[in-house]
């Protein structure tokens, strides 16, 4: 639901993309126009730094700080990359953002280019977002026609061009260093030592930002760093965040809310709470590579700082909330997640490439009732070892497993002791033979009917 403070997701109808004119009417490209030839690039960097904008792709690294890591005397050409790979299970916020408001991301990229004296931007998008890519390309031509993109933008000395680069589909492409290789047409292993801000694409300084991060930039530039800070719920959670909720809730979808909104508020108020007949069991707060949270944590504010305070291994991630109900066996869910990670492992380093299938094998044995008592400590030890893999993929993959072992030990033990899933019944996946009752369509508030196509 578009809150009173939402400014990115104005138009909630996914089928309707904000046109250039509509965007401009809400102040779009004004920030760009004002800063061109008036603001020094270092000042833009400082504004973004002061706003406290944290990367929205899951790592939470301050965007302004990243921009400042690119030295002023670094060689040219330089590149800005908008990361829309978004293959984290449960995450679809960028999809919606770009379907609804592509221009804010375009303007954000241009401003990022200006601030970093970059000449070219790449929009890196996953293959299952074909529609989104087409909408983005249409918006790019609108922007070019309007003089906001291309040579000597709005009569200034600054030129910037954006190219859409389609991936062929692998989770590791969303990892910044994997992305660099993928873009260069090489195997997307993340084996780059050193900072991308110094040596990225083709050895040149490169800034990789999540699409949502870039989306806020025009607004920060136009309204000021303090304005952005004040939007958030508290000091350490500046700005807005686009949260998504999926699972067995009444209104699965995407919500732009003040950063630091509580977990409970998002699930119960904005997503409408659980579907009738379903009780909340646990959720993953930020996509598949986070740890389970139970109802006791509903009060926790959904920002990087507050989430990490819960305990080791807890993090906000993408802020994509996956809700699991009382009928879900968490062992099965975790197994499904680890199967995903094992399949997507790029294969560069040993613990991820071999260790994740190893964890999968043990969990699968537990799930089908063939687990043994020592599987628990073995799995926990393996989760700890994932810390020393080459990149953060393995660590993320281990998070739900670690959460399962530590917070749902009883459920795991029940599988081992009783040699079967305690929640087992004839039709384990209650696939509806008729439309799921109760799911509301966010736009109309009416019950949703299965659409074809989306």
């Amino acid at each position, binding site marked *: 639901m578009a809150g009173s403070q939402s400014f990115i997701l104005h138009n909630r109808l996914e089928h309707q993309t904000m046109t250039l004119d509509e965007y401009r009417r809400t102040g779009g490209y004004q920030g760009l126009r004002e800063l061109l030839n008036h603001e020094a690039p270092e000042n833009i960097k400082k504004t973004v730094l002061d706003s406290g904008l944290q990367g929205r792709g899951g790592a939470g690294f301050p965007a302004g700080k990243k921009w400042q890591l690119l030295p002023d005397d670094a060689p040219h050409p330089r590149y800005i990359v908008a990361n829309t790979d978004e*293959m984290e299970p449960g995450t679809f916020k960028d999809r919606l953002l770009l379907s609804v408001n592509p221009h804010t991301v375009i303007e954000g990229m241009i401003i990022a280019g200006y601030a970093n004296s970059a000449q070219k931007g790449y929009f890196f998008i996953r293959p299952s977002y074909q529609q989104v890519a087409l909408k983005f390309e249409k918006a790019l031509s609108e922007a070019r026609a309007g003089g906001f993109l291309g040579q000597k933008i709005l009569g200034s000395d600054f030129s910037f061009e954006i190219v859409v680069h389609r991936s062929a589909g692998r989770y590791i492409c969303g990892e910044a260093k994997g992305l660099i290789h993928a873009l260069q047409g*090489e195997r997307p292993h993340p084996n780059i030592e050193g900072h991308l801000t110094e040596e990225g694409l083709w050895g040149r300084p490169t800034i990789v930002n999540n699409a949502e991060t870039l989306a806020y930039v025009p607004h920060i530039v136009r309204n000021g760093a303090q304005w952005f800070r004040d939007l958030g719920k508290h000091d350490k959670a500046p700005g807005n965040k686009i949260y*998504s909720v999926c699972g067995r809730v009444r209104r*699965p979808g995407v919500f732009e809310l003040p950063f630091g909104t509580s977990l409970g508020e998002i699930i119960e108020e904005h997503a409408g709470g659980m579907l009738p007949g379903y009780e909340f069991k646990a959720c993953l707060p930020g996509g598949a590579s986070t740890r389970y949270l139970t109802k006791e944590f509903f009060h926790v504010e959904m920002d990087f700082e507050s989430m990490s305070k819960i305990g080791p291994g807890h993090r906000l991630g993408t802020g994509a909330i996956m809700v699991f109900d009382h009928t879900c066996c968490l062992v099965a869910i975790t197994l499904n997640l680890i199967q995903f990670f094992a399949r997507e492992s790029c294969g560069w380093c040993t613990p991820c490439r071999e260790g994740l299938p190893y964890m999968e094998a043990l969990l699968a044995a537990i799930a089908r009732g063939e687990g043994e008592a020592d599987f628990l400590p073995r799995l926990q030890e393996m989760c700890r070892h994932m810390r020393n893999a080459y990149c953060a993929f393995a660590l993320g993959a281990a998070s739900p497993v670690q959460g399962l072992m530590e917070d749902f030990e009883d459920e795991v033990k029940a599988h081992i002791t009783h040699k079967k899933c305690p929640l087992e019944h004839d039709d384990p*996946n209650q696939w509806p033979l008729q439309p799921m009752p109760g799911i509301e369509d966010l736009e109309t508030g009416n019950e949703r009917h299965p659409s074809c*196509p989306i």
Partner: protein
Amino acid sequence: MMLPEDKREQLQTQILESEAPREEAINVMFALQKHYGYLSDEAVSEAAHMLGMTTLEIEELATFYDFLYREPVGTYVIHVCDSSICWMYGEETVMDYLSKTLAIAPGETTADGLFTILPVCCVGYCDHAPVMLINGKPYGPLTPDAIDSILLDIRLNHPECEEVK
């Protein structure tokens, strides 16, 4: 059976305008895949030739990715999302239903060459779970009736069914 002249020229232009030919590798492979129906050995050779790469170097890329098919697939590739939300919403039974309806197992192609069923990881449409992609186009939330009508729709409009570029 090579790529038509105009398409090849278009790709050559893209390659020339890129920072390095390899940047266009995926685009070239997608174009050839579309032309040949799947990324055949012939397609791999042609891609290698266009990009100044060896067939091995193309293969290193082609076998890494989900949406490049190195084995023959049907005209319509049905990717069924099997990540946790869709799975929760019945992915396994969606897969079963499709298999039963089309009389093939996941990984196989129907005898008339129309459909192939493949699993895929989270496609980013979790709010419409359970979801499948057909040639890149998302459909969901799925019920048996919905699946039936989608498949029927495709069969009826087969030559003209709008494909995503």
